């Protein structure tokens, strides 16, 4: 039944484009409904739903899909960030035709991401990664302004190279394993002696997904893309697209297909640590609101990869939790930046100041988002970072645990800079008559802030079950 998570959004795109009068007006409501449905479906633990061949469709459709707790976390994030994006879109896209196109592309991207989350075949994973990538190209260039086109082109080039590397890896897997199914490949990789070709294939996948997830030093495209994309698109990109297309795919491939070895772990940990530190450092002096957030994204992705690199159940649970947290607080912060941008028409934080008075909601929610990102208890971000750091420590990568802590301090530092420049400090005369952002931007921000606080406060009670849920993920 879980195939319906792919089919239903796609079918709704088809239906929306049927030449029926007035059907376009349904788009917004339908999309909201679908996303809420998806969140509900993830939260309702009906094992029958997640079985692959459940209904009558089994005779016609034969999809290789599967969902474990890792997939479910990501599926939830996809629906969450997409609905937030959807709500924020009307503030920026006024034209009704364009809005319709935006919703269609959003639905297709969601469809692709859902498939990525549930794929159990490396080539299918690649196909849907490409769907996500193409739809994000279109979203970045959606306004067809010069920065958007520039960002889109850079993304196309780097993503194209990553794609090619990934297909090369798939080709090598076909050569040595004769299949592209996760479990078959995993089996073949274990039984076969570690040949050079296997090593090469692993390297190709790692590099391809490093590029897609924007780890240093493969990250060049990421700040440009996040900065240049239209505000709702950058919420989607930063919140979920690169996380699914890069980070989740990497975690999935490592866990289900490639398995861990000392050299792979050291590569993951090193790249993660470099991203954590350099990303945070680079964020420190940015003057563009969104650009600062995008370097912060690089830094946070570093944490996820550190958690993955620990190779333990706790670390991967922490990574998955951090994916969720990152989706929550980073889309919250991008929504905040969108709110500021929509009111001020500028993203230059050097020119802002004292907006806390004029935009109290935006200010408050951004403080919550920043603190969660910096890992301040009891917000949600604290727990995932704690899990990652403890996992690193327990496995024995103590120096990396220390780096993770230092990175957290740096995170706090740049968010303090951001808060001081934007929301506190001296109000600038230029923006005296600014009002709080509209309903469509405040509502998602408030919802996300509440989610962060609630999840953070409830974490001590929920985490044990959550972590135990990851034992089969790593075992199988």
């Amino acid at each position, binding site marked *: 039944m879980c195939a319906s998570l792919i089919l239903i959004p796609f079918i709704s795109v088809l239906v929306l484009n049927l030449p029926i009068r007035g059907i376009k007006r349904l788009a917004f409501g339908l999309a909201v409904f679908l996303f809420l449905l998806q969140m509900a479906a993830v939260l309702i633990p009906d094992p029958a739903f997640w079985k692959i061949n459940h209904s009558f469709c089994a005779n016609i459709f034969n999809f290789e899909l599967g969902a474990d707790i890792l997939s479910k976390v990501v599926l939830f994030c996809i629906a969450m960030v997409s609905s937030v994006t959807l709500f924020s879109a009307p503030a920026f896209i006024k034209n009704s035709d364009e809005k319709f196109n935006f919703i269609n592309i959003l639905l297709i991207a969601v469809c692709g991401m859902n498939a990525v989350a549930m794929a159990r075949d490396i080539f299918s994973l690649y196909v849907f990664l490409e769907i996500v990538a193409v739809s994000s190209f279109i979203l970045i260039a959606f306004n067809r302004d010069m920065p958007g086109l520039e960002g889109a082109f850079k993304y*196309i080039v780097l993503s194209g190279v990553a794609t090619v590397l990934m297909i090369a890896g798939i080709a090598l897997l076909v050569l040595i394993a004769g299949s592209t199914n996760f479990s078959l490949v995993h089996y073949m990789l274990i039984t076969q002696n570690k040949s050079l070709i296997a090593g090469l294939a692993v390297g190709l996948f790692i590099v391809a997904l490093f590029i897609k997830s924007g780890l240093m030093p493969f990250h060049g495209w990421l700040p440009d893309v996040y900065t240049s994309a239209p505000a709702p698109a950058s919420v989607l990109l930063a919140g979920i697209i690169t996380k699914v297309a890069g980070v989740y795919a990497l975690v999935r491939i490592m866990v289900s297909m490639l398995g861990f070895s000392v050299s792979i772990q050291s590569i993951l940990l090193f790249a993660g640590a470099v991203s954590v530190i350099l990303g945070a450092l680079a964020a420190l002096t940015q003057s563009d609101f969104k650009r600062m957030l995008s370097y912060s994204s690089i830094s946070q992705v570093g944490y996820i990869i550190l958690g993955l690199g620990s190779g333990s159940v706790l670390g991967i649970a922490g990574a998955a939790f951090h994916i969720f947290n990152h989706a929550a607080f980073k889309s919250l912060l991008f929504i905040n930046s969108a709110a500021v941008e929509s009111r001020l028409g500028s993203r230059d934080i050097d020119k802002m100041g004292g907006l806390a008075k004029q935009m109290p909601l935006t200010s408050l929610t951004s403080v919550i988002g920043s603190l969660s990102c910096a890992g301040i208890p009891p917000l949600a971000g604290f727990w995932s970072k704690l899990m990652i750091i403890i996992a690193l420590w327990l496995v024995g990568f103590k120096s990396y645990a220390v780096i993770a802590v230092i990175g957290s301090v740096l995170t706090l530092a740049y968010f303090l800079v951001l808060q001081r420049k934007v929301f506190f400090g001296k109000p600038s005369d230029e923006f005296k008559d600014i009002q709080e952002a509209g309903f469509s931007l405040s509502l998602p921000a408030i919802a996300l802030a509440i989610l962060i606080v609630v999840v953070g406060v409830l974490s001590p009670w929920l985490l044990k079950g959550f972590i135990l849920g990851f034992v089969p993920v790593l075992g199988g």
Partner: protein
Amino acid sequence: MVSGIFAVLLFAIGIYCILATHNLIRVLIGIEILIKGVTLLVIAAGLKSGNLALAQALVITIIVIEVVIMTVAVGVVLGVHRHTGSLDARNIRKLKG
């Protein structure tokens, strides 16, 4: 084996092209050459391991995806041309820092 070597060579040519050229269309051509190399690799791998049917199925999908990516990319390049009046890749270095 020989196909593998030539796939790597095509890869090198494509990367060199992307790095050295100043023309947006030629960047896309570079990416195309990368994909050519990788298509060759997939077919060769399928032939060598006796999974040619699978390999062909994969290649067909890859080609479809390739076309779509190229279409979108061309759309982006045309957009850039509309703004700057040229295809010079040096025009797209505005975002930095």
